[in-house]
């Protein structure tokens, strides 16, 4: 027990980095994903094609490679970002692409009659999207979004490649130093707790949307 207590300061510091990446990525990539999804569905060819290629690249290459590229590659074309920003940029761009595909599926699944119902009532486009379409999309995409959010928790461990000290790295350092597996057990438990919390949160969210069919 005393040993675990002695690990806590470094694990908490790693956890802070992990949570920071996690929260900021979510806060930006979800709204960005909505915008990208509408762009992907746009009738303007240039927009939808560009976005299609962006999504292909983001989903078609490993996130680790994207991290490396943003941090080590971009300086060659004059864009030098600090470790934190680089990690966030890569994560946000990557996750926005995944969220966009989920939202696109959700938007596509809304019957045309919902749009026509809104049109004949004279609702504005903005009102139709925000009040009629998106609330229904949210209900339909919640399970997939929940999955993706849980993936993100675990993916944050990749930021060690740009030299950030996140949770898993903190555990690894302690494990090497003390020749013990206990730090890994502690780290695993922390991930598990976070995922359990998120799972419960999404369960409640889904319940909140279960008042209609």
């Amino acid at each position, binding site marked *: 027990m005393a040993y675990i207590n002695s690990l806590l300061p470094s694990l908490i510091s790693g956890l802070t980095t992990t949570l920071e990446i996690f929260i900021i990525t979510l806060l930006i990539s979800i709204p960005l994903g909505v915008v990208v999804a509408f762009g992907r569905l746009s009738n303007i060819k240039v927009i939808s094609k560009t976005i299609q290629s962006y999504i292909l690249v983001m989903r078609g290459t490993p996130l680790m490679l994207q991290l490396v590229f943003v941090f080590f590659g971009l300086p060659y074309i004059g864009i030098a970002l600090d470790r934190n920003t680089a990690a966030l940029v890569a994560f946000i761009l990557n996750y926005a692409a995944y969220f966009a595909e989920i939202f696109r599926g959700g938007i596509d699944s809304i*019957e045309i*009659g*919902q749009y*026509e*119902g809104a*049109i*004949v*009532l*004279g*609702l*504005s486009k903005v*009102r139709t999207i925000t*009040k*009629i379409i998106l*609330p*229904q999309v949210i*209900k339909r995409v919640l399970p997939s979004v929940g999955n993706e959010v849980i993936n993100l928790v675990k993916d944050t461990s990749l930021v060690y490649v740009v030299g950030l000290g996140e949770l898993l790295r903190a555990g690894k350092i302690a494990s090497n130093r003390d020749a013990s597996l206990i730090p890994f057990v502690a780290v695993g438990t922390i991930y598990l707790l976070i995922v359990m919390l998120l799972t419960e949160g999404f369960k409640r969210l889904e319940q909140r949307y279960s*008042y*209609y*069919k």
Partner: protein
Amino acid sequence: MSLKVEGLYKSFDGNTVLNNINFKVNKGEIVTIIGPSGAGKTTLLRAVNGLEDADKGSIEIDGDFLCKNNVEGIEYCSKKQNKSIRKKVGIVFQSFNLFPHMNVMENIIEAPRSVLKMNKKAAAEKAEALLYDLGLETKASAYPFQLSGGQKQRVAIARSCALDPKLICFDEPTSALDPEMREGIANIIDDLAEKNMAILIITHDMAFAKRVSHRVLFIENGKLIDEGKKDNNFSDISSKRVLNYINS
């Protein structure tokens, strides 16, 4: 005059679906368009509601032109005019298209609130009166999935009526109803006409068309080919083919 359609043409990929359609619906008049499958009924109704753009011709709703001919062909009204025409025409879709995440009250007051800018209290009072008239006073807080087909239809009617349209269109209003409920919807439509609304119905249901309409128009291959009036017990229909159809 609540609706006047003149010289309306529409084709899909070279296939002419509406071929020189001309007709009117007066205030308080119930006009039904019947005809075989694929004749163009739904397309016509969608054009009147601005959901389908015509190729040529004019559609006039309560004195405002949704579209009319110009030298190049057809000209649609401006966005601003479109907004004011929208309020004058309503449609009850065959599948109702209620908003599933909103309860009955929210479905009805959405447009009065956001389009007519009514305050919540006034909009709710009006909705309650409509629900009462339609026998739905206990359903204000129900969600669409909790309603029967006939109840959903009446909510859709209330939702249209909340904007005080001059013209209401019905797409196959009896398709989701059992025979007893047909009389119910017929009575509702009679009431709307008595309040001086113009009613345009499309249906396959001959018995219903005869029960509810002041005039029945027959459409075939995108052309209106015959017309019968209730006053004459539809005996002014001349075409044998149509007579057979009507009496079947």
